[in-house]
């Protein structure tokens, strides 16, 4: 008998509406998918398709949605210790050193100082920031600050890492190199990752599977398995297969992105009137 990997994260018929009556907006509708342990899944979609809403619902940061989110068969209704989050915006606390930033989740959970600092050092080294423990975020580059945020999210050893466009504010080269770091970390820890992105290259570089979302209301339009060998490095970007996957995803995304752009243009014309 062949063992099929069991569902680890299970999102079932998730829907989220904002506002009431005629002004109500359905951000996401009927979103269902699952992630198995150790898998990296990307959700890609045009701006405004509800990607971040989806991630915040899974991370327990917003309430009032329809449907269910469960992790290892446990229904998620709020922030959960098994979930780690990395945000799009720079979130490293400027008043804390790198070491204190990474130790923050362990401090919140009440771990003794010596133990939490030792564990924080381990994750700092994992993201390649050893030697920078006593530096403050203002002394680091944007890419390094985002690595601090990743190390902090990993410090309490979550079962799944939710990443909301973590490289959006970085330049392309830093983004590719950070992608490499994520691949190494994922391989070392066997970390399950759900990544929200609008970057096609990033999605293919990092993922085992890519979920393409429609423009508002956000639904899963299609699912594409990325059958590229692991371990991966950024060299994979030059392969033919990589280019074909990017083209395939863009083929699905193009219509949705166009729809989003037309809607945005329409909205700004109404605003002008």
């Amino acid at each position, binding site marked *: 008998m062949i063992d099929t990997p069991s569902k680890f994260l299970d999102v079932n018929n998730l829907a989220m509406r904002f506002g009431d009556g005629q002004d109500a907006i359905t951000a996401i509708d009927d979103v269902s998918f699952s992630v198995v342990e150790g898998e990296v899944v990307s959700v890609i979609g045009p701006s405004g398709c509800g990607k971040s809403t989806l991630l915040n619902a899974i991370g327990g*940061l917003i309430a009032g949605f329809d449907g269910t989110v469960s992790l290892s068969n446990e229904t998620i209704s*709020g*922030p959960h210790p098994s979930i*780690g*989050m990395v*945000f799009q915006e720079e*979130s490293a*606390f400027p*008043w804390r050193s790198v070491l204190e930033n990474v130790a923050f989740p362990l401090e*919140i959970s009440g771990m003794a100082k010596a133990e939490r600092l030792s564990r924080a050092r381990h994750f700092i080294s994992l993201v390649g920031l050893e030697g920078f423990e006593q530096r403050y975020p203002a002394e680091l580059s944007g890419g390094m600050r985002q690595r601090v945020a990743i190390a902090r999210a990993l410090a309490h050893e979550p079962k799944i890492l939710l990443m909301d466009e973590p490289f959006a504010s970085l330049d392309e080269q830093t983004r590719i190199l950070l992608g490499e770091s994520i691949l190494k970390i994922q391989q070392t820890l066997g970390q399950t990752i759900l990544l929200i992105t609008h970057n096609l290259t990033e999605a293919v570089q990092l993922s085992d599977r890519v979920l393409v979302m429609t423009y508002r209301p956000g639904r899963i339009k299609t699912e594409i398995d990325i059958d590229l060998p692991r371990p991966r490095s950024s060299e994979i970007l030059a392969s033919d297969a990589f280019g074909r996957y990017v083209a395939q995803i863009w083929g699905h995304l193009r219509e949705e992105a166009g729809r989003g752009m037309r809607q945005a243009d329409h909205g700004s014309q109404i605003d002008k009137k």
Partner: protein
Amino acid sequence: MSARASKLAPIATGLATILAVIVLLEILIGIDVIDRFLMPPPSDVFVALPRLFTDENVVPRFFVTAGETLAAGLLLSIFGIAGGALLFRFVILRRSFETWVAALAAAPIVLSYPLFLVIAGRGSATVVLVAFLAALPAVILKTLEGFSQTPGVYALVGKSLNASRWQIFSKVMFPAALPSIFVGLRLGLLVAMLNIVGMEFLINTGGLGQLVNELSERYDLAATYAAILCVILVSVLFFTATEWLERRLRRVA
């Protein structure tokens, strides 16, 4: 430049500038460009300083003014920061009172001192009350600004880690807002000190303000300026104390 030299350079530059201004004043007053009956030469002011100790009882007066400033500062820290935090936390309070608080900041509260004399009597309580009320809006508004300008993602980080409300406030929101809160406190202390010295000057209850008043009425200009130097010393002391406290709090948070 060595690390030690680069650390000392700003201090040395600052002190050298003050010294240069003193020497310049001495020269300008010496050659009658500045009338010595308006401003005594700095050398006369320094000569007058010991007289404040021997004849004018400056030490207890210094402690009266410093004590009143400390009391006003403590009240400002408690009510100003709490007020700003409440306005941030409750939108209804913010919408209702923010404009009023801003208007209060522009109100010359010191002019209503006779009313406070009736309420709190002729003494330090009135001085502290007037100073506190005059400085309170600055602390409230800067605290509110500090919390409002804290990026929302910081609180989300805490929330995603299942931090309690108190942990999010004490370990995230408060330290993030600290720089703005301390700008408000320093501004508040400045306004408070102006009001304290002004009130002491007006109602003659003691302190350095009363000393300045007495010396100026005696036309002892050198001693008057020496007493003003003591007022500046109180101000510098509190400024340094808030800087130290801010550094400590940031480290603790």
